Every structure is written in C-alpha cells, then in structure tokens.
C-alpha cells in the first residue's frame, strides 16, 4: 500500500530520470577513473539518483503522508500555453502581437479576470516593453513581424 503518495511519485520520477541518464550515457565513451570519459560522471549520478528514488519509494510504503492536492489545471494550462504561444508568435507576428497574446491568454487563468483592466494591462505592458526593451535597451526584436507586413 502506498502510504505517502507525494514521496511515491517523487521517488518514481527520480528512478526514471536516474535510469534514463545512466542508460543514455551508455552511448558515450566511459573512459577510466584516470581519464573520465563523458559517460563517467553522469553514470555515477544516474545510478545515485535511481538509488535515491528506490529509497524514497520504499519509504513511501512505510511512512504515511498527505495526499497530493488536486492540480490547478486551469492556471497551469493557461500560463503554459500562453508562454508557448509567445514563442510561436514572437518572430512572425512580432513582439507587439506576442505580448498581447501572452497577457490576454495568461490573465484568463485568474479567478478575478475582467476584460477592461486586462485589455488596459495588455496595451500598457506592450507599449512599456517596446519602449524599454526595443527602443532603450536595443534588443533586436521586431515590433510588428512579417505576418503583419512589418
């Protein structure tokens, strides 16, 4: 019986990551202790991480702990998707389009979302960012991208 779900899943992640690291490292030259190859250190670390994972999993059967509280799917999804969309849009659409997308979409994640202040915020942040980052600090970013004929 799993008595500590948080530990159980943490342990599984550690085990998987450690094993993956060690297995992938088999493709690299191991070398010797005298001349450590690229696989040497990651293999040690991977094995160590997997062992820690095993220990944490075993402990999760012994020591009880809280359940994992429900995931906040909505904020997680909006924040993540908004960030990814920024990346998708920033080159072709330009910084202005990307920022408005990012602010509007991410603001949806909040329970206190309201249209008027969010639109004002989006415009304000976009103007501010363009003035500060592009005009003043001179970052090489297009304000309006090729998609908009910029």
């Amino acid at each position, binding site marked *: 019986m799993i008595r500590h779900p948080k530990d159980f899943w943490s342990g599984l992640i550690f085990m998987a990551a450690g094993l993956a690291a060690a297995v992938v490292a088999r493709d690299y030259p191991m070398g010797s202790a005298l001349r450590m190859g690229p696989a040497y250190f990651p293999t040690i670390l991977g094995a*160590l991480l997997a062992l820690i994972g095993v220990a944490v999993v075993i402990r999760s059967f012994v020591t009880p702990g809280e359940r994992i509280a429900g995931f906040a799917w909505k904020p997680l999804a909006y924040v993540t998707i908004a*960030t990814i969309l920024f990346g998708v849009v920033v080159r072709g659409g330009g910084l202005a389009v990307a*920022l408005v997308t990012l602010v509007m979409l*991410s603001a949806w994640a909040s329970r206190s979302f309201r249209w008027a202040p969010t639109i004002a915020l989006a415009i304000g942040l976009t103007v501010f960012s363009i003035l500060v980052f592009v005009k003043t600090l001179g970052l090489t970013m297009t304000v309006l991208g090729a998609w908009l004929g910029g």
Partner: protein
Amino acid sequence: MDLLANLLVGIEAALTPLNLFYCLAGVFVGTLVGVLPGLGPVATIAMLLPATFALPPVSALIMLAGIYYGAQYGGSTTAILVNLPGETSSVVTALDGYQMARQGRAGVALATAAIGSFVAGTFATIVLAVAAPPLANIALKFGPAEYFSLMVLGLVASVVLASGSLLKAIGMIVLGLLLGLVGTDVQSGTERYTFGIPQIADGIGFVVVAMGMFGLGEIVRNLEREGGVTLLVRKVTNLMPTRADVKRMVAPIVRGTLLGSALGILPGGGAMLASFASYSLEKKVSRHGSEFGKGAIEGVAGPESANNAGAQTSFIPMLTLGIPSNPVMALMIGAMIIQGIQPGPSVMVEQPRLFWGLIVSMWIGNLFLVVLNLPLIGLWVRLCAVPYHLLYPAILVFCAIGVYSVNNTEFDVYLMALFGVLGYVFAKLECEPAPMLLGFILGPMMEEYLRRALLLSRGDPMVLLVRPISATILVMAALALIVVLSPAIRKKRQAAFAEDL
C-alpha cells in the same frame, strides 16, 4: 592597512556615477519585488539577468546584489502592512509587525525594520570585508580534490538547513547536477543528452531553468491559492519610535545582526534561516516574552536585522570560494560566468575592483534603502495592494522577453514553459526547487574538478580522502548528514520550522 587600501579601491569603483546609478536601481527594484507579494528575488534576478549582460561586470553584480538585499527590506513592508510576507525571509516579521500595525504603530514597525536593516547591513559589510580575504587566501591553495569536496559540502549543507524531506532534497540536487551536464562535454566534445537539438548543444541556459522553476512555477502555485489582499493601513504616519521603543530594540538588533551574520556564511544559510533563528532567540531571551505574537517590537527588530545581515554575509562563500549558498548566489555565479569571470578565490586577486566595489556598494545600497524608503513609504503602501491578477501577466512578460532575448531563440521560451510545468509538479510533490538549481550550476564544475583530481592521482578516487583538507571537508559533510538524520535532531528540526508559524 591592507583593509583600508582595499576599501579605497572599492570606494573608487562603487562611487562612479554609473555604478551608483545601478546600485540605486538595484535596491529600488529589490524593494519593489520585496513589496510585491508573489514575486521573489530569484525570479526577479533571473528576469533582469539578460538586461545586465551588456553592462560592465562590476555594475551588473552591484545591481543584482542590490536586488537581493533590497528585497529583504521590501519584504518587511508587506509583512507589516498586509500580514503577507513579501519574501520568505519576512515570514516571521509578519507575526509581530502586523500586530503592531493593527495597534496603529505601523510607522514605528517600519522604522524599526529600517534601522535594524541598516545597522545589520553596515556590520555585515564589515564582516564581509574582513573575513573574505583570509578565506580566499586559504582557498587559493586548494587543488581540484579540495574543490570537489567543498562543493559536496556546499550542496549537503544547503539541504540539511532547509525544511522538508532530506532524501528528496538530495534527489533534487542530483537531478540538478545531471541537468547541468546536458550539452557538449568540454573535454571530449561529445554532446550529452542533447538528442540532436542544436539549441541545447551548449547546455540548458540557467536563466531558462531559474525563470521556469521560480517564475512560471511560482505563478501557477500562487494562482492556486489566489485570494484578496486587504490593506490595513492606507496612510502611514508617525514613523518616530518612542524612547522606550528604542531601548527595547537595541539588544534585539545587535543579537539579530550577529546571529544573521554568522548564519549567512553557512552554506544553505542566508536570509530566511537567519530570520527564523533570530525570532526564536528573541522569544526565548525577551523579558516581554508574553507580548510576542501580539506586537512585540523585538519580534520585528531581531529578524529584520538578521535577514539583512544574513543576506549580505551569504556573499562570502560565493565571492571567496565560488560556492553558492542559496539560489540567489547560484544566479550571481551564473552572472559572473556569463561575464567571463571564473568564480572562486582568484576573483579577489584578479578583479579587485569588482570584489571590493561590490562590497562597498552594499553599504551604499543600505544607505540608499534607509534614505529612500522611509520617505517613499506611501508609494510602497500603494504597491502592496497591487492585485495579483494584474501582476503575474507582467511577470510573464518580463520572463518571456528576458529568456527570448538571451539567444534570440523561441526554443528557450518553450523550454522555460516546460520547466514551469516541472516546477509546479515538483512543488505539488514537495520537492524543493532550490537544491536543484544549486546542483544545476555546480554540475559541470564538479565534473571538471573530479576529473582533474583523478587525473592528478592517477585515477585513485581515494585522493579525496587522503588529502587532509579534502578529507576534513568531506567528513564535515558526512557529519552534517548524520547529525540531521539522527532521530532526536530530526524531530527538533521539524519542530523548529513548524514552531513559529
């Protein structure tokens, strides 16, 4: 006097108009993020790092340092006025500070925090100036074996003093070490764990990891428990403490300063631990013990001095040994590497202007904090009330632009989103992100030192235990682990973190 000559170098470097400006900018931004709940110094420094790449190294580090100790100061304002710690290090300040505000003594509480911070900052600057050179001189004699062991100690210590499960924290460190190895191996030129993706051939950017885990991950965590903020005080008047107040705050400030300075030097120490320890201490020694939690001025004076002192002395291991004691120092090391400076004891010798300029700037920064912030208190009060739903889209904007601008690649933005999800998942599983970031920064360095140590010893790993300094350091690391794992201490440790909250 060596010290005086050194300080003169520092004064010369710190007092240029440009560096004064960046010092001021740093403490201003630091206070700002300290005041705003839900935005921490790690995320802020990560966001602003890209903007500092173009600056000279001295100015960049002066500003980043200013953000860190400025945030300690700003955090207290929010703690006192809205009972929300703006920073983790101000958690205990909220206990008595907020009660003082409810009794109409918000101004006195704020002034106490300011005075305490300034005294502590001044003292910690002197500690830094006096303690750093001898430490760096010892460290200059270290070989690769000693460095490897030192990093092991640093990583171990960073988790034994933290709260939560020790085993999981160590797991996070190792995970961080592994992530740090992604990219081209310097020795052989082999690409490791890149899966043919050219954007990570040079490794994963630490700005990406820091912003993802501490910026995006935090935002989702905050949105999860989103709630309204009620501002207690709209106008702060009467900043002057009474004669009785001053009498009661002197001893706690002195104790907090000493305690904070000492705890800050420890790897894994820093501001948060210092403030917790100081509060417990004050509660024990105070003659007004029963007033604690009901607006005792000692409960503000002690922790606020301690966290500022700790924030500053935590620069000592970073500057002299190149070892980060907390995530902010890890970012500072990252900033130095990007500026082309190899962190470690040689910084003091090769970059005296940077080293001493940074130290002197801390004292100047503390002066700025007092001079600027008490008059500006009205502004900070209003900022305390900025609702989170208007704040986090702005944080996202800075993160996105910042991470994109480093290499001008969308890939980094996607990677940051991925680390955001990871950060949130780990938070759900109660796995601390801070040890992972430390491991991430130290991973490549540790491999390099281990490689050199083993090369010098002809492949004999016993070198780590045969060389006396290296052995001593490793024994200390082992002792730290054993002590924390022993059942009696374990209970105490859990109690210590639970007690005051």
